[in-house]
């Protein structure tokens, strides 16, 4: 579904990502792990069009997406969240998700004067939003302003907003950071349920317990390079991975 080929990014001579290749399948949870500064978010930015790679290609759904705008990539079904929580702060939860559902849909200007067109669009948006809020267990806070939500709820809301864009492959950047164990478990369940719906997930995450529990395959980045790839059980035994994590946050301990 998504394939990165020899992707390299450097900032002023410093390699953030170096010749990384990998594939993520459309029905899998693929996790990208690695110590801080390993280039995970940069890789995400390349895959979603927020950063141009110096070299390399990214193919999604059988077409190269390098050079497309983030919105164009999102429209193809590759939708991301951000490491730092990003929501539409001034809007209510319901409204934000409603808006999210219409973002990828074409609505030409002339339709604004077409009787009923706006009402229909709004109805569709409202139904879709209700469905998404239900599935993310956010219906109780639907009327609240996004900014009034707890941190944990905001992180879930981000996923709800991403789901509103109708992804075929969902990319989550550290969705569990800052969540307590209960919230993290809830998040894990949400992610697996998304996979169950046939939507692939690529996950950057430091919470190794979560990663080991739900991933189908794991990619390990270190200093911008891919040092290992495989199923959770393979990765846990990989000597290079253990070495890379030594001194930092102990991999075995996590």
């Amino acid at each position: 579904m998504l394939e990165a080929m020899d992707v390299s990014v450097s900032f002023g001579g410093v390699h953030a990502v170096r010749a990384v290749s990998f594939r993520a399948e459309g029905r899998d949870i693929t996790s990208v792990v690695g110590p801080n500064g390993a280039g995970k978010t940069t890789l995400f930015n390349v895959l979603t069009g927020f950063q141009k790679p110096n070299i390399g290609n990214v193919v999604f759904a059988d077409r190269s997406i390098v050079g497309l705008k983030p919105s164009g990539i999102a429209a193809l079904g590759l939708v991301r969240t951000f490491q730092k929580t990003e929501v539409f702060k001034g809007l209510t939860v319901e409204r934000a998700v409603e808006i999210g559902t219409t973002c990828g849909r074409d609505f030409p200007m002339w339709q604004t004067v077409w009787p009923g067109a706006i009402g229909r669009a709004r109805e569709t948006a409202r139904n879709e939003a209700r469905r998404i809020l239900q599935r993310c267990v956010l219906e109780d806070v639907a009327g609240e302003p996004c900014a009034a939500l707890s941190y944990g709820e905001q992180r879930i809301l981000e996923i709800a907003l991403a789901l509103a864009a109708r992804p075929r492959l969902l990319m989550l950047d550290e969705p569990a950071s800052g969540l307590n164990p209960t919230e993290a478990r809830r998040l894990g369940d949400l992610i697996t349920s998304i996979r169950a719906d046939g939507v692939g997930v690529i996950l950057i995450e430091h919470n190794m317990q979560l990663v080991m529990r739900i991933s189908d395959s794991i990619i390990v980045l270190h200093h911008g390079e891919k040092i290992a790839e495989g199923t959770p059980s393979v990765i846990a035994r990989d000597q290079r991975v253990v070495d890379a994590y030594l001194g930092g946050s102990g991999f075995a301990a996590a």
Partner: protein
Amino acid sequence: MKSRVSLPSWLALSVTALILLVLPRLIGTDYYLHIAIISLVFVILATSLDILVGYSGLLSLCHTAFFAFGAYAAALLFLHFQMSLWLTMFAGGVFAASIAWLLGLLVLSVRGHRFIITTVIFAEIGRLIAYNWTDLTQGQIGLSGIRPPVFDLPGLPRIDFSSREAYYYLALVVTTTCVTIIWRITHSPIGWRMLALRENEALAEASGVDTRRIATTAFVSSAFFAGLAGAVYAHYTGFVSPDLFYFTYTTTMLIMVFLGGKGTIIGPVMGAVLFTILPEALRVTANYRLMTFSAILLVLVVFAPEGLVGLFARIRRRFAGQGSVQDA
């Protein structure tokens, strides 16, 4: 959307409509009708500026330039080709919109201060052109002799709009139409994308909003209505000059948007009406007028950034005791 309009709103709308329709009978004198017509023009300007400032979060300081471009286009088309307002309205709008599109190619790639500053500079460029291209614009003297239109279709009664009263009704129809369309744009998926742009540009992109495109849409449509208002103004006053480009006009429009409440339609409408009447009421202190205005704007921006609409909502919440969030 119809289901969302409550009974009291319908009542308020009907009463307002009725008052607007009989207004010329109520106020009678030409002077007050003049103020009414000018405030209608400013209603278009304020609501169209709100597309950018309120809904899209782009603080543009060149709205009056689009107004002026529309007015000049209308004036020139009338003076050279005897085109009536029926055509110059659209020509003025399209001309202003085209310029906005071109300018957008340049300035919509920058945000924040650079965007704001560039728009100020652009308005000045417009003024310099109007001032210096004397062959076309007669420079400082301005263009005069632009006449109101005459409605003359076979089989229908002929209406001459040169009387204040007739022009009032014309402006009322045009303004109502414009405000309705602006309302529909801002409350359609297009407007929702503008909100996404305003609230969080990166997230909007990630959600599939082509932010560059929606910013352009906002900029161009906002300019279209400003240009159209320019034509309505030109055919009413019969006179356009480079002064229309003055920053003071943009400030006036901004005060209207902020006074009423940005990011709403009713807000700028109220703001425009109030702020056209208020200066007239304050005529006694002509010398201190702009000082008073700027003080009002200052206080509004610092202490009541949500404007009158926000104030009403706060009062209503206090009485109803419910936490309703302002419909953006």
